[in-house]
């Protein structure tokens, strides 16, 4: 959450709610709605770390709001973040742990495990495909496409496991 907030603040100062709605606007329904409490906590930490500077703005009829702007260190952090290559592929290995450890745990129906996991992935794939059809903006659509491709890789991996184990 830290770096996306800094990236948004690189454009102009904003308060927490504005940042939340900007994230929603860019990423659409594909992105889990950021929790406003989480955003406030993150902004406080960024301020503590010297990456943003907050200033209270007095409002007459409503509670004061705190507007944040990027510091020079914050601006450098954003540039560094954007310019660096990101970490490699994510291997979500909880299922694989189950598959590897099920005989040790005394439940060795690996085909059953693989079938249940395949059903789970297939139903996610179906939901994502429906979301993809409904997504009319580029960023949310590409995000969903990425999730679909990851799931397809997970399904391929499942098949490899099946070929080897069963």
């Amino acid at each position, binding site marked *: 959450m830290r770096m996306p907030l800094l990236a948004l603040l690189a454009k102009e100062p904003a308060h927490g709610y504005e940042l939340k709605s900007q994230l929603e606007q860019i990423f659409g329904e594909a992105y889990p709605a950021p929790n406003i409490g989480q955003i406030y906590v993150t902004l406080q930490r960024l301020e503590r770390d010297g990456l943003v500077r907050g200033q209270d703005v007095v409002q007459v009829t409503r509670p004061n709001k705190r507007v944040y702007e990027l510091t020079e260190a914050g601006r450098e952090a954003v540039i560094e973040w954007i310019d660096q290559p990101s970490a490699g592929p994510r291997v979500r290995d909880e299922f694989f742990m189950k598959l590897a450890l099920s005989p040790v745990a005394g439940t060795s129906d690996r085909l059953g495990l693989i079938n249940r996991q395949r*059903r789970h992935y297939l139903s*996610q794939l179906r939901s994502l495909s429906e979301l993809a059809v409904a997504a009319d903006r580029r960023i949310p659509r590409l995000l969903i496409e990425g999730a679909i491709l990851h799931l397809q890789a997970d399904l391929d991996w499942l098949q490899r496991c*099946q070929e080897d184990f069963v």
Partner: protein
Amino acid sequence: MTGDDGRQVLRAVNLTKAFAGDGVAVTAVRGANLALEHGEFAAITGPSGAGKSTLLHMLGGLERPTSGQIWLNGQRVDQLSQARWAVLRRRHIGFVFQFFNLVSNMTVADNVELAAIMGGASRKQARARREELLGELGLAGKAHAAPARLSGGEQQRVALARAMANRPLLLLADEPTGNLDSAASLAVLALLGRVHADGQSILLVTHDLRVASAADRVISLFDGMVVDDAPMTAPRHPTPLPDVLKLRG
């Protein structure tokens, strides 16, 4: 023994297929059981070599099973002669193939009308059916073109129209998106979804799990056997969203 209780359009019992190889028999399908109810859309999936296409070809009468039974709409059909199968296919089955298999020296319209006439329609009925189908599939403007002038996605939509021309009891599709890019695949898949929504029974073979996940049921074939037969009962929109959507940052 009767084939079913009337709800099933297709049933396969303990179906096997062995091919005589170089002195060795190769068993492609070993004891497959499956059933499809009227109006159902099922996908058969599995790795290459799992026996998917062989199974579908047996169910459509293109290959003769080594053993086992096939029941189509309550009638046992696995022992029919090739000629009887040909009549059955023309009248009651629609087939869509990976490589479209359109008749290249006939127009799009004639490809579809011929299938309707072979299915028992009069010329006038065939023409009306062709107009209706090409209209529904967004191809009305291509009726008088040669198939080769069309893109792969369009040719597969024509093949779908042809397969639907005889109002088949059962639509069989063998890797219908296997030769298409992803946009054309999705378009063909959307059309299959539409004809299914109109009540068409569909059995589709695909190695593409995204395509398979659009069906009501996914039948997993592995090494010639059905290893899973899973109803797809996913909520239309999952909550919470799958982990794969959670961005890091």
